[in-house]
């Protein structure tokens, strides 16, 4: 009998709200220094999926909730033939929820968010890339497989972190209602996410951040806020600019799960005409200090779970629940202007370094989203956006080049 598992708390929203507007798919790419060989990648994928069989699942509908069921469909490597982040989950179709493709020097791992979060996906891509490289260069990399990089039992990998750390708290604080500034403009069209990514040196940016006594994330959050502010009119300044920043909960609540286990914080700033970059930076820094604590994150997490634990909601048939979840999602989207997702630094054994140029991430979005990921000294900042306008991206990168940082831009634009 096929094994099955419930969707974890944060994952429940994704099947209900995925569609042409937001496919809820994200892509992790690894750019190598040489062209990718398809057959070898297939072999590497076969090995990787054996190591992480959790990913070999299909999504199915129950009467009350979706669930994941293990499947024996063999994942097949393809030469990239779909638009980045276009839908992977198709209703009623029992297909795997991820796809591995390649194009020139890039290995792409695209995955539906219900299956895993950024951390889980990165684990899989790392596993895949290291298998690929050891297969490609058996003489040099012999026995250099990362035996110990992911040390967890099958059960731990399947852990539902939300259930593990949920506490019933009575009389909890409600989140205040915020209407954040919303970007408008001509869109690229359904399932077309415009990608603009910049590669820069970690060192040079870190230097600038250190000068201001802040972390890179805080620094870039402030740059992003200001880049959005430049496109706002006086009238629009009445609403705050709010960035949603996903947080890897594993850092705060120990878990080896490779399923969804993330929370988020909302960082907002209310502009009043001529705010200097330093003002914004100062406030963002304070905000991170205040919000990014175990207590703050667990409050949000408990909030979400208590909703899921609601007995009336639980026994509502899935079809109706989906309508409510989609509506709730639309409402909660109003709280944020854009998303800034930091995947952090990718660690792989040093032996692999000569073969890998960079890692990069982007995600489908009904707004604009910035993802950040670094490998050695290569920091990749990728914007994905449903809007045709490139103004915010321009403002953002001009801010960085204005500091004397070298940036190399690559894009996927739509006519």
């Amino acid at each position, binding site marked *: 009998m096929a094994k099955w598992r419930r969707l974890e708390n944060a994952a429940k929203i994704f099947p209900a709200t995925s569609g042409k507007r937001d496919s809820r798919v994200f892509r992790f790419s690894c750019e190598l220094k040489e062209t990718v060989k398809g057959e070898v990648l297939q072999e590497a994928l076969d090995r990787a999926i054996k190591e992480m069989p959790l990913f070999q699942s299909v999504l199915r509908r129950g009467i009350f909730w979706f669930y994941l069921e293990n499947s024996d469909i063999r994942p097949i490597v393809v030469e990239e033939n779909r638009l980045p982040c276009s839908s992977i989950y198709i209703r009623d179709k029992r297909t795997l929820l991820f796809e591995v493709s390649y194009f020139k020097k890039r290995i792409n791992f695209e995955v539906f968010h219900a299956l895993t979060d950024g951390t889980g996906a990165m684990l899989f891509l790392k596993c895949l890339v290291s298998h690929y490289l050891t297969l490609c260069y058996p003489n040099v990399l012999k026995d250099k497989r990362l035996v110990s990089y992911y040390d967890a039992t099958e059960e731990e990998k399947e852990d539902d972190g939300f259930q593990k750390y949920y506490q019933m708290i009575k009389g909890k604080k409600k989140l205040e209602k915020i209407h954040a500034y919303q970007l408008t403009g001509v869109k690229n069209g359904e399932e077309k996410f415009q990608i603009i990514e910049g590669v820069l040196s970690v060192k040079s940016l870190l230097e600038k951040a250190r000068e201001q006594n802040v972390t890179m994330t805080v620094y870039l959050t402030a740059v992003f806020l200001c880049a959005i502010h430049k496109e706002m009119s006086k009238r629009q300044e009445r609403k705050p600019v709010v960035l949603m920043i996903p947080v890897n909960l594993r850092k705060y609540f120990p878990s080896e799960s490779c399923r969804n286990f993330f929370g988020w914080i909302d960082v907002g700033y209310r502009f009043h005409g001529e705010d200097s970059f330093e003002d914004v930076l100062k406030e963002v820094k304070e905000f991170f200090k205040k919000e990014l604590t175990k207590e703050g994150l667990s409050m949000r997490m408990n909030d979400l779970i208590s909703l899921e634990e609601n007995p009336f909601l639980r026994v509502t048939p899935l079809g109706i629940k989906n309508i409510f979840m989609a509506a709730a999602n639309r409402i909660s989207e109003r709280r944020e202007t854009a998303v800034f997702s930091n995947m952090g630094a990718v660690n792989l054994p040093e032996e692999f370094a000569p073969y890998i140029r960079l890692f990069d991430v982007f995600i489908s979005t009904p707004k604009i989203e910035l993802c950040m990921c670094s490998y050695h000294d290569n920091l990749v900042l990728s914007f994905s956006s449903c809007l045709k306008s490139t103004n915010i991206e321009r403002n953002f990168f*001009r801010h960085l080049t204005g500091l004397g940082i070298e940036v190399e831009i690559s894009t996927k634009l739509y006519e």
Partner: protein
Amino acid sequence: MKYCEKCKVKIRTNHEKCPLCQGVIQGEKEGTEEIFPEIKEKNYPGVLFFQCFTFVCIAVGVVSAMINYIFTPSLQWCFYAIAGVICIWVCTAVGLLKRRNLLKNAIWQEIVIAFISFGWDAFTGWHKWSFDYVLPCIGIVTVLFMIVISMIQKLKPQEYMIYFMIAGGLGLLPIVFLWIGIVKVEYPSILCSGFCFLFLIGLLLFRYHIVMTELHKKFHI
């Protein structure tokens, strides 16, 4: 590699203008490199088919109304024609919508056809033929169809079990209607429900564990 003076960025992918500011850029095409392939827009033939089909349906309705009012204004037959077209359209639309899972499709069709026949029966004098004949017939046909499909597609238990159970359950409805007293011609309902009852018992007896796990999966709250 190309370079934009205003943005002060190097541009790796090949562009005529700066992708950030749409300004003039310098440098040669040489050294530029695409990181995404060119992907052609997909055409879905199914969409065109459905558009044509919908248009034909509407046209049939409109034309029959026109003929009705020009040639036989005293007889209002066009409503039957229009209702018939709507029924055909609904069945086809459900069929297309659920095309990826034939067993699920069969359940939907069974329910849709049942309601359509109730409707026709009710508006044509309520002779109860929908309860006497249609319901038992589609009950049996659905179960047989599912068995055949799951054999042809070599489906696994977790893929067919829940639909078998639903179809078997729906097949018990005729006997309920007989007991309530709606059904007048008895033998089709007895045949259908008897058959479906045996089918369900068979599932329980020979596939007990699978039935139970499926129920647990589908009904987890």
